[in-house]
């Protein structure tokens, strides 16, 4: 074998012709391990032409996009390909639904490729130059499926400092050439952060060429392949099938790793490097400590790592709840001020002023849109902060440190972050469950997040605690947060013993990525994509719900008022509240005011205080007498509905508010992530659980 190939080996030398030929819309699958720069490459290839979608029949999110490159000559048309960023995996022997999606997608492409003479797709396997052996092992498995492959070599900027392999310290072009020669397929060195000279056009040429003329990976015999093995119908090595015959699996594994070692030796030989060899026991050596190793001695140490982790989480909490608050307030003022005034003025010009149409548009639709928009800063800050933590490599360390504590719930350390974020806002916390590797773990965590006491509930705690326990308000509020933690732990243990018996903390041999500087462009694109997804999907449900709530409040019951001009006590909404109130009587707060406030709390916990104020017809917020008069009225009505045990009823009300349901926006996000059935089941269980807890608190409290 010649050792003087280049990255653009014989296949690429034909790529000029291939790129000029009119190609159908080719499917390109991006496959690689976690943290190998796959998503960065995907963003570089697609730019803004991308969106997320769920893999068929799963809740696993896939990023898909269009990869467009200019024609090879000025008269030609641009070439477009469909590109899918498959979930990262180290192996096709899947052990999570995300990894299963990757395995299934590859086998599906292999099946289609065998059934047609044309080659409908190409797999781009992303090799991490800092961990070549591990990447080669995945490449070997992909090659066994028989799909056409191009290799993209990444992480070359880190290779000189962050590897124990002498290979990665070679000149990238030389290394890519040696790999291409050894593997017999195109190897393109990538720097996805450099769009002009980062290898994007070379990768496009290689993909198009391989689509035209696929080649086999040298030394790997595909189970079946239409282009290089020629044995259609042969027994497939299905990595997703149960491996009953352990002996043959072990033999196969040994063969795979022999190939990995062989490739390593060949490349070393090409580069005239000393061949790697197993050391005898008497000859141990010490690995060179990288920057990441030195930082990890602090961050992975339990005594230092846990305080650092808590500080980082606190910062995240502060960012989510405080930094975004002024932006939220500004958006709220803009929507409810100038924008609402403008719409009202416009409707007045059209002769619709002070009509039900104005009520629908201003008090229903615009309020709904405003609610969605006010969440944007929270979501954007949350996603940006998470992106920085993830991209820098810290998130993996945090998960490692928190792993032990979360195992009691059947979750691993990665579940801690969404749960803590939930104390700021449930909505981004639900979105943050995407950092968990398994769908069932995401679902379990997503069911527990609504039990975390979001900051919106704090406003209600302050009102109730100040009104009923003025001398111990701080202690009561602290107790509510403690109750929230206990509910999460208790709920987690209960779910693990019932509906989630199959959930176990998977083996957690987390491979820690090297620390690196987050890339702003990738970060911005990631935030934009995720925030956009929230606005489009959850936004529809939020707006619709707000319109329905407006309609309920606009419809009179007595017939003495016209639609849209109804006092709250004559509205259908209030009638429903009156119907619900008796069910709350065993908990001591079976009055119309509390029931109506809880109904509006379903829409957003922030409006509970306003609902109380509205239904008690007290002064608006800002009045110096508001708290006092509202507090007195609360004490009076709660004392009446509880038979003189207003304090116990207030505590029961707060516990109910904590546990009964997240806001409609969080429910919409739950539905988006997990589907209708788990969302409705969780909502039902929470309502029942909250009622039982509230009754328990009141019945015990009223007897003390």
């Amino acid at each position: 074998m010649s050792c003087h190939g280049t990255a653009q080996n014989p296949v690429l030398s034909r790529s000029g012709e291939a790129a000029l030929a009119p190609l159908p819309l080719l499917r390109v699958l991006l496959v690689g391990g976690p943290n190998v720069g796959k998503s960065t490459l995907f963003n570089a290839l697609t730019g803004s032409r991308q969106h997320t979608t769920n893999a068929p029949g799963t809740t696993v999110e896939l990023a898909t996009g269009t990869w467009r490159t200019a024609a090879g000559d000025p008269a030609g048309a641009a070439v477009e390909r469909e590109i899918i960023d498959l979930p990262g995996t180290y192996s096709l022997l899947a052990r999570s639904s995300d990894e299963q999606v990757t395995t299934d997608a590859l086998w599906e492409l292999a099946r289609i490729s065998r059934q047609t003479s044309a080659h409908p797709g190409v797999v781009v396997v992303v090799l991490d130059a800092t961990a070549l052996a591990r990447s080669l092992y995945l490449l070997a498995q992909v090659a066994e499926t028989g799909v056409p492959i191009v290799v993209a070599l990444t992480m070359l900027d880190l290779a000189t400092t962050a590897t124990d392999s002498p290979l990665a310290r070679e000149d990238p072009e030389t290394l890519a050439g040696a790999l291409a020669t050894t593997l017999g397929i195109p190897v393109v060195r990538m720097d996805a952060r450099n769009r002009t000279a980062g290898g994007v056009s070379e990768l496009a040429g290689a993909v198009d060429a391989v689509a035209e003329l696929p080649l086999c990976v040298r030394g790997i015999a595909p189970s079946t392949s239409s282009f290089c093995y020629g044995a259609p119908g042969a027994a497939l090595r299905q990595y997703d099938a149960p491996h009953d015959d352990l002996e043959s699996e072990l033999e196969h594994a040994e063969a795979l790793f022999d190939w990995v070692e062989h490739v390593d030796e060949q490349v070393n030989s090409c580069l005239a490097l000393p061949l790697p060899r197993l050391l005898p026991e008497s000859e141990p050596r010490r690995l060179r400590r990288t920057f990441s190793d030195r930082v990890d001695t602090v961050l992975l140490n339990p005594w230092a790592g846990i305080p650092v982790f808590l500080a980082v989480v606190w910062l995240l909490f502060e960012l989510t709840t405080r930094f975004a608050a002024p932006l939220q307030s500004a958006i709220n003022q803009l929507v409810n001020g100038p924008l609402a005034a403008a719409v009202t003025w416009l409707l007045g010009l059209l002769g619709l002023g002070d009509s039900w149409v104005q009520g629908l548009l201003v008090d229903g639709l615009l309020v709904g849109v405003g609610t969605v928009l006010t969440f944007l800063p929270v979501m954007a800050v949350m996603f940006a902060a998470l992106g920085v933590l993830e991209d820098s490599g810290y998130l993996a360390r945090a998960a490692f440190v928190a792993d032990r504590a979360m195992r009691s719930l059947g979750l691993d350390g990665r579940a801690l972050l969404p749960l803590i974020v939930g104390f700021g806002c449930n909505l981004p916390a639900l979105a943050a469950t995407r950092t968990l590797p398994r769908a069932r773990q995401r679902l379990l965590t997503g069911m527990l997040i609504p039990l975390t006491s979001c900051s919106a509930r704090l406003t209600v705690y302050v009102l109730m605690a100040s009104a009923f326990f003025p001398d111990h308000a701080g202690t009561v509020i602290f107790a509510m947060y403690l109750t929230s933690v206990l509910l999460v732990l208790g709920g987690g243990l209960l779910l693990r013993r019932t509906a989630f018996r199959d959930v176990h903390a998977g083996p957690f041999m987390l491979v820690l990525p090297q620390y690196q500087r987050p890339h702003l462009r990738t970060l911005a694109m990631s935030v934009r994509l995720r925030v956009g997804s929230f606005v489009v999907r959850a936004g529809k449900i939020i707006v619709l719900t707000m319109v329905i709530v407006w309609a309920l409040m606009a419809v009179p019951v007595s017939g003495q008022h016209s639609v849209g001009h109804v006092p709250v006590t004559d509205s259908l909404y209030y009638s429903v509240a009156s119907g619900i109130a008796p069910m709350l009587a065993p908990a001591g707060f079976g009055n119309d005011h509390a029931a109506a406030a809880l109904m509006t709390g379903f829409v957003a916990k922030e409006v509970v205080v306003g609902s109380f104020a509205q239904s008690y017809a007290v002064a608006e917020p800002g009045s110096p007498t508001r708290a006092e008069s509202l507090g007195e009225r609360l004490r009076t009505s709660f004392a009446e509905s509880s038979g003189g045990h207003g304090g116990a009823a207030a505590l029961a009300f707060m516990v109910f508010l904590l546990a009964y349901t997240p806001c409609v926006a969080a429910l919409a996000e739950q539905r988006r992530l997990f589907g209708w059935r788990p969302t409705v089941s969780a909502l039902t269980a929470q309502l029942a659980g909250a009622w039982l807890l509230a009754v328990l608190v009141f019945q015990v409290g009223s007897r003390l």
Partner: protein
Amino acid sequence: MSAWAAVLDEVAVAGGTPGQVAARLGLQTSLVKAVLDHAERLGVVAVAGNGCGSGRPGCPGGPDVPPACAGCPLALP
């Protein structure tokens, strides 16, 4: 001896982190991680934090001891 066999033998006898195993054998850490990952997926290696390594009770012993616990000083007789 192949890297696959060497890593599994080393883990069975002495255990350790992937980095330690790599250092003892003179192999690349990424190769050792790949071997351990595949072995774990096949169920012949367990990771600290589960079973014996977690310090939780219930470490299996006797004839049912899994291959991953071979050589573990905490394994029950």
